[in-house]
């Protein structure tokens, strides 16, 4: 009977270590050089994009990207620049979602991360900015 005690103790210790390990996983890893660099590039671009968010030219899609919502509010001369901004931003956002998934050793989480970001960009967007509702139509915050 007494010989069982070390085994039970071992089991208890093992289970405890698993709990501690799970707790350490409560945060997602977002501090990698790749994430930092894409974040910096998005931060630099934001100053240019914010005008178009406010004007309603650019809106947030439900899948965590940007789209040209209404080209007519952009002067003809600027349209190409807006499209370039959107495409550069979307490229960065795709890299961001992929890199977060990879940094956490779960590349298959990329789409979940994209969906989560999609909801949070919209949630944190300022009043007057446009976003795509669940049914695909555009709405103003």
């Amino acid at each position: 009977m007494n010989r069982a005690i070390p085994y039970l103790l071992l089991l208890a210790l093992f289970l405890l270590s698993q709990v501690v390990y799970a707790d350490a996983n409560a945060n997602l890893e977002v501090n990698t050089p790749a994430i930092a660099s894409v974040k910096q590039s998005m931060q630099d671009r934001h100053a240019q994009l914010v005008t178009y968010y406010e004007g309603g030219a650019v809106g947030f899609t439900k899948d965590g990207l940007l789209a040209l919502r209404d080209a007519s509010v952009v002067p003809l001369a600027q349209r190409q620049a807006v499209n370039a901004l959107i495409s550069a931003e979307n490229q960065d956002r795709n890299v961001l979602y992929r890199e977060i998934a990879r940094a956490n050793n779960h590349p298959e989480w990329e789409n979940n991360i994209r969906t989560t970001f999609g909801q949070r960009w919209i949630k944190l967007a300022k009043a007057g900015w446009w976003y795509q509702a669940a049914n695909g139509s555009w709405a103003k915050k």
Partner: protein
Amino acid sequence: MRKFLLYTNLSVLFGMFLSACVTINIYFPAAAAEKAADKIIGEVWQLEETEE
């Protein structure tokens, strides 16, 4: 006695197996992802901490 020891060994193995299942985190941590998203969005948009 021997039989008891065998059962103990088996239960230890089973316990390890069960906890290993828990450790392989196959479920997407939605709350942690939301927190991470808010942090990154806050940095990109340079929001104040208090701002929603």
